[in-house]
């Protein structure tokens, strides 16, 4: 090694003599300086078995399966939902017919916030950026003709996750599918709502109770369901760096584990059903390093700190979505290229499922054509590029290994800081994450403004007088009216006495300590609406208010 050290020092000397430059001018998209060259010196002293190991084995740095994509490629899971259940149902059938292998539901804002379509706060937002679901009746329509024992469904829902999940379970019952056979994911990650996505309903404590109720119910009755998808995606989209995304997401994960243990659950009972959701941004190697570091950190903590004994509890399984915030309204076709690189990084990072954004998403909801190209991008990576032939092809790269170690070390610093602040919820209350993210996003924007960071078509290589003419999917304003009428007529025709009893029982349970899931299920079965169930819980739990920081 000392020969190498000497030789390397000599090379560096020549380098600086001939072409002097500064690492500070070569930074990742997160602002991390990168060296001109990485060598065995950067991974010196690394114990291969301890740090990397083999795929499918602890600490899973190289992947969670023995054979990774040689056995089965990742799940193509395009997120979609718009207008009413009927229109979204048609889009799902189209995607399934084109080779998509999992469904992913985007809900509209009123559904996400727990309001029915006819609530005054829902005005103008019904069916706009997702599908409107008010009751079990809508859920039945959403999955009409789609056998729920054959597909896996991911639902991006957090504050009211328990209610929408209960509707899905009840919908399956009506199809004759028992809950034990259902597979899928609810996002159900309320911590990142307070941190970044900001679609909260209740204050943190009752929210955490609902989540642990879901863990316990899932372990018993819906064993193949991922009961939380701990999400860095939104943290990153809100402007966080790659390290912040990694650290804050894993810190949230640890907080859920601790909450589950505190609620009296055995860690191995619920930890195997925890899953993750990350962003894949434009800085190719930084992203790959982030995914690899995430697996290693999670495995170590689960085993060593939380004492998990089941290897399935050590595995960090994750979904990836390419970075919406990297797309540009200018020259939107270029977004196809951006998305392809980001998708490739996710695959080289070992993702379990993937959503590729459509080129037009920065302008509006994607059209069919744009969605198809996005799906085809994944199929091209899987079938044409050859990257699936070997596992973790970048493992052992001096650069990627050094970057993986660096990401891990930086994340550890954040864990320390969060602990000093009194844990994740205390750090949220103190505005710590919110301020860190606001600072990072402002720094990034400044770099763009000063052209320290070039975005093709936006601050360089601009097409003067560019006229953007790609077709845009429009939502018919009649959608809102139709959905409002639908929920009104439901209230007029269902058995309202049963609804009242179910809601009263739910409130009583909320005041106590019983698991809330059976009560929520009872309420959805008699067609209580989402808004009514959430309102009942608000009366017991109250609502969260954020102190605005900028």
């Amino acid at each position: 090694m000392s020969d190498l050290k000497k030789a390397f020092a000599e090379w560096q000397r020549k380098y600086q003599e001939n072409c002097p430059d500064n690492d500070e001018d070569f930074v990742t998209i997160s602002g991390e300086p990168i060296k001109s060259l990485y060598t065995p010196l950067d991974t010196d002293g690394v114990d291969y078995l301890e740090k990397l190991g083999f795929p499918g084995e602890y600490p899973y740095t190289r992947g969670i399966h023995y054979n990774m994509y040689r056995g089965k490629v990742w799940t193509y899971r395009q997120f979609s939902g718009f207008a009413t259940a009927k229109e979204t149902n048609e889009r799902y059938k189209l995607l399934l017919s084109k080779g998509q292998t999992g469904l992913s539901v985007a809900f509209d804002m009123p559904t996400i916030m727990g309001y029915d379509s006819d609530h005054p706060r829902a005005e103008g937002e019904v069916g706009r950026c997702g599908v409107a679901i008010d009751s079990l009746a809508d859920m039945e329509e959403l999955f009409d003709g789609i056998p729920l024992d054959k597909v896996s469904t991911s639902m991006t829902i957090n504050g009211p996750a328990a209610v929408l999940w209960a509707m899905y379970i009840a919908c399956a019952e009506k199809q004759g599918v028992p809950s034990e056979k259902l597979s899928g994911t609810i996002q159900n990650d309320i911590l990142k709502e307070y941190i970044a996505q900001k679609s909260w309903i209740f204050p943190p404590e009752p929210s955490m109770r609902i989540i642990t109720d879901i863990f316990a119910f899932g372990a018993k009755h819906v064993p193949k369901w991922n009961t939380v998808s701990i999400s860095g995606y939104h943290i990153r989209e809100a402007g966080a760096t790659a390290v912040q995304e990694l650290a804050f997401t894993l810190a949230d994960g640890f907080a859920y584990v601790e909450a589950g243990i505190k609620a009296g659950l055995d860690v191995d009972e619920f930890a195997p059903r925890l899953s993750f959701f990350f962003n894949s941004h434009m800085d190719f190697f930084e992203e790959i390093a982030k995914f690899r570091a995430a697996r290693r950190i999670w495995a170590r903590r689960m085993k060593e700190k939380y004492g998990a004994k089941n290897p399935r509890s050590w595995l960090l399984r994750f979904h990836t979505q390419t970075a919406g915030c990297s797309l540009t309204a200018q020259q939107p076709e270029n977004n196809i290229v951006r998305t392809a690189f980001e998708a490739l990084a996710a695959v080289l990072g070992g993702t379990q499922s993937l959503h590729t954004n459509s080129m037009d998403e920065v302008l509006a909801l994607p059209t069919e054509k744009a969605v198809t190209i996005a799906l085809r991008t994944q199929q091209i990576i899987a079938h044409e590029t050859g990257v699936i032939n070997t596992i973790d092809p970048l493992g052992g790269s001096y650069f990627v290994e050094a970057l993986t170690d660096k990401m891990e070390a930086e994340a550890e610093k954040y864990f320390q800081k969060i602990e000093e602040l009194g844990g994740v919820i205390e750090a949220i209350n103190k505005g710590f994450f919110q301020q860190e993210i606001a600072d990072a996003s402002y720094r990034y924007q400044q770099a763009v403004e000063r052209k320290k960071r070039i975005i093709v078509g936006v601050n360089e290589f601009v097409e003067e007088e560019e006229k953007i003419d790609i077709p845009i999917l429009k939502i018919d304003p009649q959608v809102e009216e139709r959905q409002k009428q639908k929920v009104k007529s439901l209230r007029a025709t269902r058995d309202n006495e049963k609804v009242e009893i179910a809601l009263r029982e739910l409130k009583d349970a909320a005041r106590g300590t019983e698991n809330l899931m059976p009560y929520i299920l009872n309420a959805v079965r008699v067609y209580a609406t989402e808004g009514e169930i959430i309102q009942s819980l608000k009366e017991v739990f109250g609502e969260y208010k954020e102190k605005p920081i900028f």
Partner: protein
Amino acid sequence: MTRKIRVLVAKPGLDGHDRGAKVVARALRDAGMEVIYTGLHQTPEQIVQAAIQEDVDVVGLSVLSGAHMTVFPKVKKLLEEQGAGDIIVMGGGIIPDDDKKELIENGYAAELFTPGTPLEEIIEWVQKNVKPREY
């Protein structure tokens, strides 16, 4: 004596995408304006009330949920009804070109900035088009 330009940056509706609103708020503040940020999930009534109470010259609405065709007309109408029609309404977010044209032509918004707009452009527009009131 003229005072500094006072801006209310507001997030109407239910969506939580506040990255753009915060970055713009900070840039306007760094450019020497007085900026008040409402925080999330505001109704048009709450926004108009805040604009009047804070005696601002301009309101910037950030909408990424697709509700812009409802929100802009409503805020503008409420401002006029409450005798504050002189407060300029501007905004930004994911707003398709046709909608943008319609909102501006009907006077619901003085200007709308869509993704990728340089901060400098927004600052300059405000400095040029918003006259701070006299004390």
